[in-house]
């Protein structure tokens, strides 16, 4: 029963009494009917804390008309769209409009333009340091984009990335010094070395699980470090191998040299991003998105050859890493042993972890953060590494997938909180909650549920012993207002599970049945009680409905 004050008793006079009613139902003790608006207002006023609802997603929307709504700019000569744009009619205003569903290409272009404008924005006093750091950033970001392709897309936990780059750089430097190869020959030769290296370490990737494979590649890294540092040919005494040919002439001004290095590494980064886009965003990437870690068996059962896809990506990436190694040697005129250091591997891991594994933007942002801390904020001293470590620790502890996973994580958290709030509203009573309402297109259904809820709340207050007694005395005919309202509601109920009477013989008895609401499906017997007269049976149905109403 709802918390209505019981309506005041009074004697209802039958308007038909002056005509002389057949059953003599001239008056009946009844109750005064309260104003339905009170119940309505009480129901629509929220008694619990409410929060802003709806989908908090912002899209760039701009109006269009006619064919322009459906026009798309495409990458020539393909049919691929320039941007993921959707044209539609606004549900509320019926105005055609366009939405950009995926804004990442815009952000990429803006970020790359910002990087290209870097030298204009750097302060003059730190110009040289920043340009050097920028060149390092470009190369490291390119390496990390390739690495994230191995770890994220191909799910191969390889730590030998820097070993591939280092080997390619050392071998090409040696070739350039010994054979006098020009700088433009170094990256292609590096790519061949990368391919050979890739073939060498791809085979175990098929047989070893993640952790053991990581150990193996770490061991390879150490092996190469020891080999190159102890080898006399590779200049064991000088801390590195230098003297290769370069595209940066030593006759240029130091600022020009830094500037060329900066833009060259930026071009390398863009090339790496294109590689990422064409591997991760196309067939190979899609195949592997179907076969994530621990679900390989399922993917294989579906006919996805994930092993071949992984090895293909690994080999492609090794070629790219070898190319970067050759480019590195051509840019810096050689390479230092520090590229094989365990510290370099860990810094690289920090870079891709901070941004989020499996995303190009994550790899680039992580590299930017770490390089900025390591190479620009020099005055912080050893604290820099502590900050990098704590940033990595914080990401691992609190974020699911780096900085770029924050949005999805936040959405998941918000959905969880919404669920909690919904469950706190125990007084819902069949009405749609605002959070659910935003997900439904049929607003009629929402309004009907609200109306029905309020109606039921109101009618619960009208069910009194007087009304039941009045109905018992005369189930059919004119009734007092309260009882009429209750009966009208009962008559309006859906056919599904609606009660009816079944007459066993020509004169009764009667049993209560309920309709199935489905054509061809017979009504079901509700209970075994038999009623001698029709009026008794009507009243029994009424009492059942009253019971259902009070239970709801």
């Amino acid at each position, binding site marked *: 029963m709802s918390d209505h004050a019981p309506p005041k008793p009074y004697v*209802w*006079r039958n*308007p038909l*009494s*002056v*005509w002389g009613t057949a059953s003599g139902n001239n008056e009946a003790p009844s109750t*005064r*009917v309260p*104003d*339905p*608006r009170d119940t309505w207002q009480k129901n629509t006023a929220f008694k619990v804390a409410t929060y802003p609802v709806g989908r908090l997603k912002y899209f760039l929307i701009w109006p269009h008309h006619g064919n322009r709504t459906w026009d798309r700019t495409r990458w020539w000569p393909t049919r691929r769209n320039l941007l993921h744009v959707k044209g539609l009619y606004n549900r509320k205003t019926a105005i055609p409009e366009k939405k950009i569903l995926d804004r990442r290409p815009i952000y990429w272009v803006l970020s790359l333009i910002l990087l290209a404008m870097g030298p204009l924005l750097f302060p003059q006093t730190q110009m040289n340091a920043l340009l050097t750091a920028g060149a390092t950033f470009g190369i490291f970001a390119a390496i990390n984009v390739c690495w994230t392709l191995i770890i994220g897309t191909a799910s191969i936990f390889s730590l030998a990335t820097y070993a591939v780059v280092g080997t390619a750089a050392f071998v090409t430097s040696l070739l350039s010094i010994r054979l006098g190869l020009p700088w433009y020959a170094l990256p292609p030769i590096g790519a061949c070395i990368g391919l050979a290296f890739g073939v060498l370490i791809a085979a175990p990737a098929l047989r070893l699980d993640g952790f053991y494979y990581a150990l193996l590649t770490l061991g390879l890294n150490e092996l190469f470090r020891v080999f190159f540092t102890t080898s006399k040919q590779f200049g064991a005494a000088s801390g590195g191998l230098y003297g290769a040919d370069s595209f940066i002439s030593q006759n240029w001004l130091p600022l020009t040299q830094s500037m060329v290095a900066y833009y060259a590494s930026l071009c390398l980064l863009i090339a790496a991003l294109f590689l990422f886009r064409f591997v991760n965003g196309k067939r190979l990437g899609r195949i592997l998105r179907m076969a994530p870690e621990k679900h390989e068996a399922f993917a294989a059962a579906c006919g996805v050859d994930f092993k071949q896809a992984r090895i293909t990506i690994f080999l492609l990436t090794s070629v790219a890493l070898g190319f970067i190694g050759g480019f590195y040697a051509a840019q810096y005129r050689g390479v230092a042993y520090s590229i094989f250091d365990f510290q370099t591997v860990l810094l690289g891991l920090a870079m891709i972890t901070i941004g989020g594994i499996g995303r190009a933007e994550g790899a680039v942002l992580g590299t930017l953060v770490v390089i900025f801390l390591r190479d620009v904020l020099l005055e912080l001293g050893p604290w820099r590494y502590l900050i990098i470590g704590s940033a990595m620790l914080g990401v691992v502890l609190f974020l699911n997938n780096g900085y770029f996973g924050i949005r999805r994580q936040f959405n998941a958290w918000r959905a969880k909180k919404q669920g909690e709030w919904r469950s706190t509203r125990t007084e819902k009573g069949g009405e749609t909650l605002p959070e659910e309402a935003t997900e439904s297109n049929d607003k009629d259904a929402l309004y009907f549920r609200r109306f029905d809820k309020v109606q039921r709340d109101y009618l619960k207050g009208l069910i009194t012993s007087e009304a039941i007694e009045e109905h018992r005395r005369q189930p059919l005919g004119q009734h*007092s*207002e309260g009882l009429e309202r209750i009966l009208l509601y009962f008559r309006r109920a859906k056919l599904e599970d609606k009660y009816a009477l079944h007459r066993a013989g020509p004169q009764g008895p009667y049993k209560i049945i309920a309709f199935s609401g489905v054509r061809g499906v017979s009504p079901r017997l509700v209970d075994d009680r038999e009623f001698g007269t029709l009026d008794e049976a009507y009243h029994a149905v009424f009492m059942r409905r009253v019971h259902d109403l009070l239970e709801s």
Partner: protein
Amino acid sequence: MEIQMSATDENGQIDKDHQVRAHFDRMTRAYLLSVLDDGLIEEHRTSDGAHPSEPLARLLAWCQRRPLSEQYAVKAESDGAFRLVSISGRRGQPPRYIGEARYATLQEARHGVLLRHINDLTEK
């Protein structure tokens, strides 16, 4: 109510519709007189008119159904007060003022109309 029991149409036939209406009206008035009390009038005076009780709703419905010549209307005066007028029911014949009472608000004037109707009801 001036419904003639012997109303005839152009052929001199007795219009039985009129008879039925008159009978119905008599029965309705009998019912209304049986439920009419001070509580009903007080309810109309105090409520905002949105949710009348069943007897009051039937009383108001009867008032609204009366023929035009027996209807009352509220006229807004230039000084902001309201007065009751009676509509003649004939084209070209203007309404005439009923009584001298001037009401400050529309609701009071409407209540005055109801009292007039009740007066007619009880006098019949």
